[in-house]
């Protein structure tokens, strides 16, 4: 332990921490912009300046490690002036387009301007003519807003993608997409940009489009992880569960039906569990990897194609549910599938890309359909609600519609890293008659990047791993390259903490926030009577009445990825 003072307050603390960390632990405020706790301190904005006795110039709190006896001052006229000028310089390279910005309701940059009394138009906009660049059907980078902190470059490197680079110098370096690599559309650049330079494709321009399908039956379905995150957009504490208000609010928006993707997750689980059961029966089980995350699938396709055959063929939850809505449900309701417009509310910008993949299509009575017609991210839905004057906090709580409104607990934990695996194992054990407690593999929960466990039935052991972040996935894939028998089942989510940390989720997003969002999902699971997909009566009914043979199961629930 060492002793320091901040603003004359004596503080005992461990070594190896930064001034910023210690200040935050002690509720001492220091303004920051470029710092993100998921990343290393780049110390580029130069706003978190503090004075340290005996050191000539102010130092940046986010990057300076404390030393014994340090006497630190977080406010004085000199640093106030420096912060103000630096902020004005930063604003001079950022074209304000506040009305359609992902940070509109939560902009640290503008808050700082107020707080530091900065004149945000002291200088002309250096980047006013800089272009917006689209990354496939998912992400847009508006380079006229970029303040060059390079967080996105680091996060994209941490994803083991490296699509974002610091481009060649012609008086200025600037962030540019790599000409040789492929973006996997995870949207982590969106989640880590301090100034809203990234957004989902058509995040603002087209969000009302789904509502314009007046002559269609408008069906909304919302992903597992939304229920514990969207509340943040309406100033509720992190991890507030809003499932029923959400349904009410979406209905108010004009949706005819609202279903829960967690029910779709129960179907995905059931299909994957069947494959796991096969592994328990086989003597030399091959490797099975999850398929729910489109960024992960794309990561394999682009960077580790030799593993494509190992990706589970089960379709992602909202795709299966979309398929069931347009077939099973449509025929129950006597609606033509062509008249149904399915909108998925997702934590994820890659889902915008997923729904246009041909692998997701299904054939029914000779016609080919897209299971899902539109994806709105969590943020987009929140924005749409606000635009229409709908306050989630005041929305009338309603249950999601039958027959896809009541998931098992394991369908809900899909939104957190480890949840897909845990669900599949619960059901596999159930099928094998070996299920006892819901938390059979609790050790694969949590925010760690790589979590491993073993599942044993009758002396037979499966090694399983739950991974989040494609950077961590790379580690596992490299291990598997050398030692193919290392794991039999691997779940990968591209985003930190799984979909609760997805690129379409409310901002900001850091480890503490992700932990709370995930915990809320596990709390819902705890409360549920039905904890395994297998036991979901709605699911059993669909299998009995509709998914009766392999052919139709294959059409709706499975796909195949190929090189």
């Amino acid at each position, binding site marked *: 332990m060492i002793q320091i003072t901040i603003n004359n307050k004596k503080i005992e603390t461990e070594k190896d921490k930064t001034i910023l960390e210690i200040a935050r632990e002690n509720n001492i405020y220091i303004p920051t912009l470029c710092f993100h706790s998921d990343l290393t*301190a*780049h*110390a*580029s*904005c*130069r706003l978190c*300046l503090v004075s340290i006795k005996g050191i000539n*110039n*102010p130092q*940046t709190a986010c*990057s300076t*490690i404390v030393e014994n006896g340090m006497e630190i001052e977080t406010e004085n006229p*000199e640093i106030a*002036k*420096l912060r103000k*000028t*630096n902020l004005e*310089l*930063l604003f*001079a*390279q950022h074209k304000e387009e506040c009305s359609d910005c992902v940070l509109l309701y939560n902009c640290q940059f503008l808050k700082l301007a107020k707080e530091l009394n900065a004149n945000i138009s*002291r*200088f*002309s906009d*250096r980047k006013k003519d800089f272009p917006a660049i689209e990354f496939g059907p998912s992400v847009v980078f508006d380079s006229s807003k970029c*303040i*060059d902190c*390079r967080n996105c470059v680091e996060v994209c490197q941490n994803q083991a993608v490296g699509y974002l680079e*610091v481009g060649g*110098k012609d*008086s*200025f*370096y600037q962030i540019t997409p790599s000409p040789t690599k492929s973006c996997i559309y995870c949207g982590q650049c969106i989640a880590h940009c301090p100034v809203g330079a990234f957004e989902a494709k058509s995040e603002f321009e087209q969000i009302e489009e789904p509502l314009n399908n007046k002559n269609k039956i408008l069906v909304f379905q919302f992903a597992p992880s939304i229920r514990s995150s969207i509340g943040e957009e309406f100033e509720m504490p992190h991890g507030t569960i809003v499932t029923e208000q959400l349904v009410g609010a979406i209905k108010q928006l004009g949706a005819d039906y609202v279903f829960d993707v967690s029910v779709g997750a129960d179907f995905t689980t059931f299909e994957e569990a069947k494959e796991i059961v096969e592994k328990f029966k086989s003597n030399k089980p091959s490797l099975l990897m999850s398929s729910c995350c489109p960024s992960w699938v794309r990561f394999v396709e682009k960077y580790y194609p030799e593993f494509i055959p190992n990706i589970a063929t089960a379709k992602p939850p909202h795709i299966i549910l979309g398929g069931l809505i347009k077939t099973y449900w449509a025929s129950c309701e006597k609606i033509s599938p062509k008249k149904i417009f399915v909108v998925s509310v997702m934590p994820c910008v890659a889902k915008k890309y997923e729904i246009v993949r041909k692998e997701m299509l299904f054939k029914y009575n000779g016609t080919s359909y897209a299971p899902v017609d539109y994806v709105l991210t969590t943020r987009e839905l929140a924005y749409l609600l606000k635009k229409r004057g709908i306050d989630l906090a005041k929305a009338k709580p309603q249950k999601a519609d039958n027959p896809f409104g009541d998931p098992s607990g394991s369908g809900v934990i899909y939104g957190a890293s480890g949840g897909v695996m845990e669900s599949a194992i619960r059901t596999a054990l159930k099928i094998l008659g070996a299920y006892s407690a819901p938390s059979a593999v609790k050790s694969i929960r949590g925010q760690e990047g790589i979590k491993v466990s073993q599942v044993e039935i009758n002396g037979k052991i499966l090694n399983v791993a739950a991974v989040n972040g494609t950077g961590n996935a790379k580690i596992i894939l490299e291990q598997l390259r050398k030692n193919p028998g290392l794991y039999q089942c691997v779940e990968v989510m591209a985003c930190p903490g799984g979909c609760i940390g997805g690129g379409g989720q409310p901002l900001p997003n850091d480890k503490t926030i992700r932990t709370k969002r995930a915990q809320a999902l596990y709390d819902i699971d705890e409360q549920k009577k039905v904890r395994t997909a297998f036991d979901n009566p709605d699911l059993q009914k669909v299998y009995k009445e509709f998914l009766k043979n392999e052919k139709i199961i294959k059409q709706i629930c499975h796909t195949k990825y190929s090189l």
Partner: protein
Amino acid sequence: MIIEQLKQSGLLGRSGSNFPVWKKWEAVKNISADKKFVICNASEGEPEVFKDAFILENYLPEVIDGVKIALQEIGASTAYIYLNKNFYLKYKNKLLQLIENSPIELFEKPSGYLAGEETAILSTIEGRRVEPRIKPPFPTEKGLWGKPTLINNVETFYWVNKIAKGEYSHNRFYCISGDTPNPGVYELPETFTIKQTLERTTNYQLPATNYFYQIGGGAVGEILLDTELSQPIKGLASIIIFNKEKENPIDLMKNWVQFLMLQNCDQCAPCREGLYRINEILQQIKEKPTEEQLKTLSDIFDVLEKSSLCPFGHTAYLPFKTAIEKLT
């Protein structure tokens, strides 16, 4: 032993840093680590400065000997001679001969002035982007590949050799250039004032009020008037002489700022945006800067000096601040 001699000699880093050489050596020597490195910085890149060029041309064996002394003294596994392109082409063969079997490697610096900054050298040799790093940790603790690393410049290693031989005369090398009859590199006492140096080398021109001087390098050097020459040089020993009648200070500043904008790494806000705005304002100045322009410039100088991420930014304000104060 040599460290004690360095301490006695009072030798200061000749790159302009002025840091006591023995302290760096001792720091690296005393840390225990499985590997340690030595880097000889031969990347000289300030406009108008050719002092290291002179030393390499005339005293290559002495410099390499200094590096070998360091290798031995601190128990380093490898030394790198970090050479700019010209030096690399010119001295490669000679150097390889001098190095013989010692664990000394040559490294060709990529173009760009910033690549000569201490921590940027580390990134470059490691094969990363040419960018300064946040200090601390200092290279003496965590340098190349995280190992303790001693970085000194060419001239420093030259004097180490002299000190080891007991031949140190408390001289240093002065580089004189610009509008002057006898430009060149001269070895003179380190205590000499600028005026003495100019007089001794017959570069002191009259009437003195006709001239101004840039001390410390052709882009980031400070501007001095003839009345300010009775002081020794603390940083980089470079004197550039300008004739007031021939020079337009605003044009000069434009050249400097454009050079600096091209050379910086664009990491931190004050340097990346500050230099851009200095340029913008310089382009707008008619004859004399307005009050408002002066205020803005002074705010920018302030953030550069006090809040930049690396030494490049910390000193980049100096030529502008002093030129505006003294010449406009």
